[in-house]
């Protein structure tokens, strides 16, 4: 996979998680800026999906293609579901849900990288 895209997704999702933690500590409920922030991370994940699909077409599939695709799908679902679950909670813990959801993004991206490198050569 393209390292630059992966690192960008990891950096932005971690920054977003830190922002949510800051908001949680300051007792803020999830607001519009937090949703927009989640949308920015989601946008980068869509970019990553497009890059992954291009790489699959150009370079061929990694060994565990099924798992790779499953991780790609999960990477796109986590934040929308997180936002949905967070917005119904009118307290700081809604912001906490956004933090947890965004913290799962780097984990998924690292796994995607590992699965891709398994392709060998």
């Amino acid at each position, binding site marked *: 996979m393209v390292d630059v895209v992966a690192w960008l997704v990891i950096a932005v999702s971690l920054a977003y998680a830190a922002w949510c933690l800051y908001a949680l500590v300051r007792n803020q409920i999830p607001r519009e800026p937090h949703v927009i922030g989640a949308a920015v991370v989601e946008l980068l994940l869509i970019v990553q999906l497009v890059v992954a699909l291009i790489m699959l077409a150009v370079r061929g599939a990694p060994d565990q293609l*099924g*798992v790779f695709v*499953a991780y790609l799908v*999960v990477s796109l679902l*986590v934040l929308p*579901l*997180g936002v949905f*679950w*967070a917005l119904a*909670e009118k*307290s700081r*813990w*809604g912001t*906490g*849900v956004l*933090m*947890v*959801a965004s913290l*799962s993004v780097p984990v998924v991206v690292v796994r995607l990288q590992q699965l891709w490198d398994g392709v060998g050569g």
Partner: protein
Amino acid sequence: MAEAPATNTGPGRVLVAVYALFAVAATARSGYQIATRFDEAPVPFLLSAFAGVVYLVATVALARPGPTAYRVAVTAVLVELAGVLIVGAVTAFGAGDFPRDTVWSDFGRGYGFIPLVLPFVGLWWLRRSASSARS
């Protein structure tokens, strides 16, 4: 009339999110293992699936209101605690040929030890939400 403990609001909201992540991670992982490599090590893979089901049940039970859901949540979290302690101990100190491929192996080291901490947080939260419902 005694109010049923609300486990799906406040900090419980975050807890449900974490449980949901582990439900997906454990279930998907075991589903893949069973589909592709079941013959290699059926017992750990079935254990993986069992862990996935436990997380799934805990997620749904914590997310739903009502006394029944509360009881199911307590049971699921206790089973989870027993699972991570037993499987963790067997894999960390016991028989060497037990594969490391479950969420609970080595007390959940592959998952940043979150599987070990999670049931304790779960029990704390269930206890706290019950006492706030009584008062």
